[in-house]
């Protein structure tokens, strides 16, 4: 089992490192390394039930077609299993890390279901494809390709996917497939630059991004004042610096996120502080406030 877990780790790490190169830039303010992400992404596969059985592994093995009966089919099975697990994990942490990403992903998922497109995992990435018959493995568009698409494809909320499909067919030799997370991130960067987030991809009425962020930020600061400043757990000076760090986070949330590592936002405001002091004195508080901020944004997006 150790050998399989080590193989799974190495595979997950390579998928994260090579197939998700831009990930660290979009993981807003999460203090997590690629190694930790690789471990977290495979850990659920090795969970056991009360009887001690590796239920997920067994179920995946039994459901796999064609039957696994040779070394090459076994290795391909492990490779696919890990690739899917990594992809699922990435979607989850992107959702958790960024409420705007989560909101847009929901809208795109709704569109996929409504129009009858399909999702297909290929080489560790979920792609939107037109139908079940999609068979291509080569020339798959990547996040760089999506990032470089003309902006006007992304303004028509209802037809974003079909417009991107049409563009690929008419202007490129690429396979007609859209990497889902890359598309969501691209849409996010476009709508954030417009400062208006569509309520859904089927509704032209938008919500003011700044208004959402400001409301969430105010709630978060209020929470800090009540729970920490008024109870003399932190001073006014400390509170002001933490407030500035939270403002910087909301700015990055709006602009697309550029500074992974939550602690970096706080250390910017406390130049004398080293990482060890941060861990001892501020980490719990700051992570708690960041969680409140994300929760508030998510709630605003739901209303």
């Amino acid at each position, binding site marked *: *089992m*150790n050998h399989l877990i*080590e193989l799974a780790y*190495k595979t997950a790490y390579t998928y994260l490192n090579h197939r998700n190169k831009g990930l660290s830039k979009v993981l807003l303010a999460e203090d997590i390394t690629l*190694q930790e992400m690789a471990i977290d992404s495979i850990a659920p596969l090795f969970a056991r039930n009360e009887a001690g059985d590796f239920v997920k592994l067994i179920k995946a093995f039994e459901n796999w077609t064609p039957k696994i009966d040779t070394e*090459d089919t076994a290795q391909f099975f492990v490779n696919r299993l890990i690739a899917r697990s990594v992809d699922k994990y990435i979607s989850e942490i992107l959702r958790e890390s960024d409420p705007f990403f989560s909101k847009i992903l929901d809208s795109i998922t709704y569109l996929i279901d409504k129009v009858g497109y399909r999702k297909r995992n290929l*080489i560790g990435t979920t792609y939107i494809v037109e139908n079940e018959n999609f068979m291509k*493995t080569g020339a*798959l568009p*990547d996040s760089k390709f999506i990032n470089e698409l003309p902006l006007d494809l992304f303004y028509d909320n209802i037809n974003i996917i079909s417009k991107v499909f049409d563009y690929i067919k008419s202007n490129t030799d690429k396979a007609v497939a859209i990497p889902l997370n890359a598309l969501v991130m691209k849409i996010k960067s476009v709508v954030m630059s417009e400062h208006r987030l569509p309520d859904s991809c089927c509704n032209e009425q938008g919500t003011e991004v700044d208004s959402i962020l400001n409301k969430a930020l105010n709630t978060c600061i209020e929470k800090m004042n009540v729970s920490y400043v008024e109870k003399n757990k932190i001073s006014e000076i400390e509170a002001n610096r933490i407030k500035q760090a939270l403002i910087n986070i909301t700015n990055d949330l709006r602009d697309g996120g550029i500074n992974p590592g939550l602690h970096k936002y706080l250390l910017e405001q406390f130049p004398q502080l080293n990482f060890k002091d941060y861990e001892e004195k501020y980490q719990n508080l700051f992570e708690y406030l960041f969680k409140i901020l994300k929760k508030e944004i998510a709630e605003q997006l739901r209303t």
Partner: protein
Amino acid sequence: MNENNKNIEISEQDVFNYVFFKDRVSSEKIQLIEMSKDYSEVISFYIELKKSQDQPLAIEIKNKLASKIPAYRKANYVNLYPLKENLQIKPNGNRLAADSKELKAKMTTKTFVDNDKEYMIKVLNYGSITKVFVFSTKDEVVNNFDIVIEPHNLVFHFDDNSEPLKIEKDIEAEKIELRFYP
């Protein structure tokens, strides 16, 4: 390109096998994969994946795996390194000069020991077959252990050392690790 090749679909498993198990891919598919630029990126990725799987893991990563995945058992490691001797032996047991090109060796043997001299491993190479014998210098039965052969990072599990490990190929070991599990 052959006209018939146009109807052949290259699947994800074909490209995977092209890198990991090329003998499992038909010549028509190999030709298609090699002639098209479409697969170059995926092939590069799988080559990276293959390389990464041959790399040993750092102890810090093993510790993290053990802390987050209960099924991963943290093992006690014993590293064994080759003794300076590297003998070539004829079937009748006579030793041959190691650098003699005139005499063809039938078998080579390499002995590995750990710093505390608690374990000894003999690697006997018969050309197309390698046998690995694990001994306790205290003459005890060695139970529940992995043999890791470096630099190939070949891992084999054994319940005990009553039988040698047999590998159906010529293995040149530089270091051997024994992993014991609680």
